[in-house]
């Protein structure tokens, strides 16, 4: 394999995991944008989504044809994550809307542990195999490109285009941006702020659901604590891109994925997580607003 083939291969690997980080980072960023909360339970929503896929593919699959089971698994994961995200906001975060930020942050950490430990208690600590059908690889220009990578990149690209259109063009998207900038002013325009926040959680969590499916197709094991590191890396991606910024989350996620795979490619795979967090530290030191973030200016 030539150097170039190797480089392209690694780039594709990086884009594969990067696109999953990006999907998860979007949820972080959207929630932060609208209620300035770092939703540390976001990674665990992915864990729940993975278990929903597992449940559908092991408990429902024997009774229906495989394609139907796959569709059910996908629907359950996405809808389940959506409902979970909206429920968490309603039950845990909404009552604290007027409380100090730190209470909200600690609550998010609490929700994260609650989800992890509930999964451990009722499903067990050992990892479960999630049997999505295997996706064949594609041979192209002397390269073997994994089908999973193509799927991840294509689905993520589609989600990003969809989300961008939703946020830029739709009425709900405009309401979302208005609330994230100034909730009281949005209220005066007649925007129902509560339902706009619920809508944001629904979209962010649905993207986490999509992320959970892609992740579990690539690494087919669900375990109670799988959301931790994934969530943390996505969080770094969101900060790197500029938290609150949707294009920032996309860029941050893809960058983190590519950097990880390049670090592994040069033989330092033990260091790949270390490098991710080193990037976070350097970013916070020199450009805390992130790549796409810009300090807001106010005119009087």
């Amino acid at each position, binding site marked *: 394999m030539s150097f170039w083939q190797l480089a392209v291969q690694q780039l594709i690997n990086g884009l594969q995991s990067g696109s999953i980080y990006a999907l998860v980072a979007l949820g972080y960023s959207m929630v932060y944008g609208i209620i300035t909360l770092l939703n540390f339970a976001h990674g665990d929503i992915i864990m729940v989504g993975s278990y929903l896929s597992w449940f559908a593919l092991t408990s429902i699959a024997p009774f229906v044809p495989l394609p139907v089971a796959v569709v059910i698994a996908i629907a359950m994961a996405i809808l389940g994550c959506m409902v979970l995200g909206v429920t968490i906001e309603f039950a845990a975060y909404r009552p604290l809307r007027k409380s100090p930020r730190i209470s909200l942050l600690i609550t998010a950490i609490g929700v994260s542990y609650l989800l992890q430990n509930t999964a451990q208690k009722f499903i067990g600590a050992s990892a479960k195999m999630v049997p999505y059908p295997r996706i064949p690889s594609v041979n192209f220009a002397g390269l073997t490109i994994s089908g999973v990578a193509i799927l991840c990149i294509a689905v993520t690209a589609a989600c990003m285009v969809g989300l961008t259109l939703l946020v830029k063009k739709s*009425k709900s998207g*405009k*309401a979302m*941006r*208005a609330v994230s*900038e*100034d909730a*009281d*002013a*949005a*209220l*005066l*325009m*007649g*925007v*129902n*702020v509560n339902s706009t926040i619920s809508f944001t959680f629904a979209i962010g969590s649905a993207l986490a659901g999509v992320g959970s499916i892609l992740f579990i197709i690539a690494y087919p094991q669900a375990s109670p604590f799988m959301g931790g590191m994934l969530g943390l890396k996505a969080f770094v991606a969101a900060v790197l891109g500029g938290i609150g910024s949707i294009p920032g989350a996309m860029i941050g996620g893809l960058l983190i994925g590519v950097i990880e795979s390049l670090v592994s490619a040069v033989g330092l795979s033990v260091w790949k997580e270390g490098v991710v967090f080193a990037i976070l530290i350097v970013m916070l030191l020199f450009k805390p607003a992130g790549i796409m973030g810009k300090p*807001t*200016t*106010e*005119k*009087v």
Partner: protein
Amino acid sequence: MLEVNNINVYYGPIHAIKGVSFTVNEGEIVSLIGANGAGKSTILKTVSGLLRTKTGGITFMGEDISSAKAHKLVHKGLAQVPEGRRIFLRMSVRENLEMGAYTQHEVTHANLDDVYARFPILKERSRQVAGTLSGGEQQMLAMGRAMMSHPKLLMLDEPSMGLAPILVEQVFDIIRVFHDMGTTILLVEQNASMALAHADRAYVLETGRVTLSGTGAELASSEEIKKAYLGG
């Protein structure tokens, strides 16, 4: 049209509004004047549902709105230009205007064209991010945005704040135009002389109470007002 009846409003333990009553009749320009901290903005926030009364009632077009949800009031024909304008700085000028018509099922182009005709500068800048506008332009945008919902009652909170005198004149001219279009106006101002010159009636607020009321002309010529608010 708007009746505020003996309302009491608290910020936690602080009794901010103490038994304030006033009315705004259809077609009037009514002004609330008073010093900083007298409770003018608190009253507007209470009318628009951002704050709640402890006791007392607010009716708009004969309907009790004292416990109505803030986002439902726009539907009923109430719009506000909030203090400090509060336009969406990261959204485009056009998007800001569209937010003004949020409760309308469709942003009619007629609406938009109306506002553009009134404020040609906004049309010129329609694709620009609102944060790049000058202070005066931002005020025009805030007023245009409020008019997008074709309100029956428009409430303005310190529209002249932080503007150069020439722009203050412009703002009041526009308020006149809105009024001539049939919009009833409730105006909160620290700039008492301008407010009294344009108001049909006015109420003077001091530390959460109405201390004086009368027609704009009456108040403008009152010795007490001259001393306290008009620098004479």
